[in-house]
């Protein structure tokens, strides 16, 4: 019905190499893009500034982390610190008079340079040990930021982000901030999608599956492990810079603590390791489930005139949220992207479910 196919058969290599080989998928991507671009006209301002904008930014960050965790199989528990370096780096550059376009890249480079140093641990250790090494990075960066007043900004430890210009347009108000975040997110998405079909992506996949096996088949694991950290940290830094300029507008050290790192890891895992779409789904679930559940419980309590205590009212959403995460990990360990895939596979040859794929 939707895909109008009896199986997936290509007659030319070019067809198979496309990002989205099926017309239906291409149509869907265009539709989503149109909806996102036209969102300011379609949705209420509240949903634009407090749902779509953070979603786009967190998805960008999750994509960067997913390249490292899902793509190259290297765990990272300090991604919040990576974003912090990007945010602080670019904001200080902007305050020093560097145009935002360059400051953003500069923030990314700062993150990449520091990220690769801690990523170096990945050359020697794996799994839980690498988790500890990156966790150490989180705390070292936190400590440095909050203990150097030059970086954190004096006794109040808060830096206001100046109004910057992106390609000549002042990034202030609802629309420019949203569109800047959307553009960066689109660029990162297209990049990550393409990584999968290049030699880089295949090398990272080889490293992910087994690093010494990759070495044996001629993949330079030294290079690709560091490269994975470099790219992922660069994206993290850029995402941090977008987060600071477009969303937070005043940055302080506590915004980039371990909670942010854990949140991002959760997004990647719940969304689906190695999946681009999963990063978007994961970001949406982790960011908005607490808000939506909170509003829901609050709304039910108000609507029905129940007098439940504030303690209960604020903890029930958290319990539901926890149950939700456990539920997803239990029933769909491969993440939200897999759920989408299941649905897609079902409709792929529907109604001829026994047709060959």
């Amino acid at each position: 019905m939707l895909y109008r196919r009896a199986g997936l058969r290509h007659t030319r290599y070019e067809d198979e190499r496309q990002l989205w080989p099926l017309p239906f998928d291409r149509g869907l991507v265009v539709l989503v893009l149109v909806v996102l671009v036209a969102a300011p006209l379609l949705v209420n301002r509240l949903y634009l500034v407090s749902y779509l904008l953070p979603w786009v930014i967190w998805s960008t960050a999750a994509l960067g982390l997913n390249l490292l965790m899902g793509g190259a199989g290297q765990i990272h528990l300090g991604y919040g610190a990576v974003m912090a370096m990007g945010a602080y780096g670019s904001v200080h550059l902007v305050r020093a008079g560097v145009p935002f376009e360059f400051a953003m890249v500069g923030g990314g480079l700062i993150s990449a340079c520091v990220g690769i140093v801690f990523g170096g641990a990945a050359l020697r250790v794996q799994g839980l040990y690498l988790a500890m090494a990156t966790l150490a990075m989180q705390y070292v960066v936190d400590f440095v930021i909050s203990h150097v007043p030059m970086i954190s900004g004096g006794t109040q430890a808060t830096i206001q982000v100046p109004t910057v210009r992106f390609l000549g347009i002042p990034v202030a108000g609802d629309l420019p901030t949203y569109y800047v975040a959307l553009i960066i997110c689109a660029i990162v998405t297209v990049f990550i999608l393409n990584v999968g079909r290049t030699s880089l992506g295949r090398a990272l996949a080889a490293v992910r599956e087994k690093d010494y096996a990759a070495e044996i088949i001629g993949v330079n694991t030294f290079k690709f492990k560091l490269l994975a950290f470099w790219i992922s940290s660069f994206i993290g830094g850029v995402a941090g810079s977008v987060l600071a300029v477009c969303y937070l507008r005043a940055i302080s050290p506590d915004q980039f603590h371990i909670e942010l790192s854990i949140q991002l890891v959760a997004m990647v895992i719940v969304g689906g390791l190695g999946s681009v779409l999963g990063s978007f789904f994961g970001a949406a679930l982790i960011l908005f489930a607490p808000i939506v559940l909170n509003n829901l419980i609050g709304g039910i309590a108000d609507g029905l005139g129940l007098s439940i205590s504030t303690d209960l009212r604020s903890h029930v959403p958290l319990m539901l949220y926890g149950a939700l995460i456990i539920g997803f990990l239990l029933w769909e360990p491969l993440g939200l992207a897999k759920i989408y895939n299941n649905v897609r596979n079902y409709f792929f040859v529907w109604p001829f479910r026994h047709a060959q794929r």
Partner: protein
Amino acid sequence: MKLNRRRFLAATAATLTMPATIDFASAEEKVIRFAMPQDFTRVYTFVTAEYSQGQRDYITLVNERGGINGYRIIADVSDHGNDLPRAIEAYEKAKREGAVLIDPLSTPVARALVPRALEDKINMVTAFSGRSDAADGTAFPYVLPLSPNYWTQAGLLVDYFRQQDKDLKGKKIVFVHIDTPFGREPLPILQVLSQKLGFEFQAFPYTPPGNDQSAIWPQVRRARPDWVMFWGAGVGQTVAMSEAVRNGLPMDRVCSSVWLSESDMDVIGREQVKGVLKVEPCVSGKDPKPVQAIINEVVSKGKGAGPENKVGTSYYNYGVMMGAIMIEGVKKAFERNPGGPITGLWLNEGLRSITNFTAEGMIPPMTVTKEDHQGGGGGRIARWDGTKFVPATDWFAANQDVVWAEIRKSSEEFRKSGK
């Protein structure tokens, strides 16, 4: 019914899309909306619960008495869990619903919301939290601490030491603090005061969140301090006190900021910490008139917002105090512009013209002006006697010259930034 994957997914999808399909909004005439997204679950927990209970009970009291000029006050309480996306969502939602005041009771959230509040002209109350330099109303017209900030609290304590010891020359004051921007905040004030008054000053930072401070306190003991100030929040406070007791420091020379309550004392043992001092911004206990009125007109009728045994505790009374100040702002706003319209600017004018307000004797006389958002910086020192906090001094304000020099320095930096 067995819970399988499909049912789980269906239930989740239904739950998450429900708020979008049901419109809970209720249209009501003649209301003034206060938004109170606060942290009930992450960091401040019981502090928020008690503070919010007092605040809501006071607002219920006002509404029960017929509101202000026929307007009902709606206090929209929700949980932001100290998480910025959630807090910003709550803020934007409040803005859409027409809230004229927001009280996030969280330092990180308040700091992050400053640019938005200033731009949207929504009054953000940052009692005992947020930026200390927001006391400078000329730089932060819509950010209102309306309470003695941490610099003032440190100034009050040092002045109390001076009153007790007559002269602080050669004395040693030790400052044990959580190693975060919040904990380091009083350092500049203490340094200036040590120069000015000639006392020796030593700072001992402990790592956040402060559930292990056993390495610090023996050093504090060895320093042989005349006075010990400990500065933290949540678990750090109780750990600090129990370590002070364990190291045999004289408890009547140990003191802290406004963040000390009966609940903290229960954790350590009420008798153990007899003598501990704290800064009190308002009268504690059930005696103040507003609290009496709440007990008679709200709690006894079963309309209280929380457990009855919390009524009259320190943080509950902070909530009552802040509720009373906000309502006084509304009254003043009606005096100035009886016709409204009810906007952030309208309430701002009211809040910034509060004069000599004492909340029926509950707080030191408070005057908020367009320059001074702190309200004078008055407070008193109270001593824990094993069952309750007993005032050790009368209301006083101290060292405001030093505090304001720091406020101006910091607000000047703020003015220069963000451009």
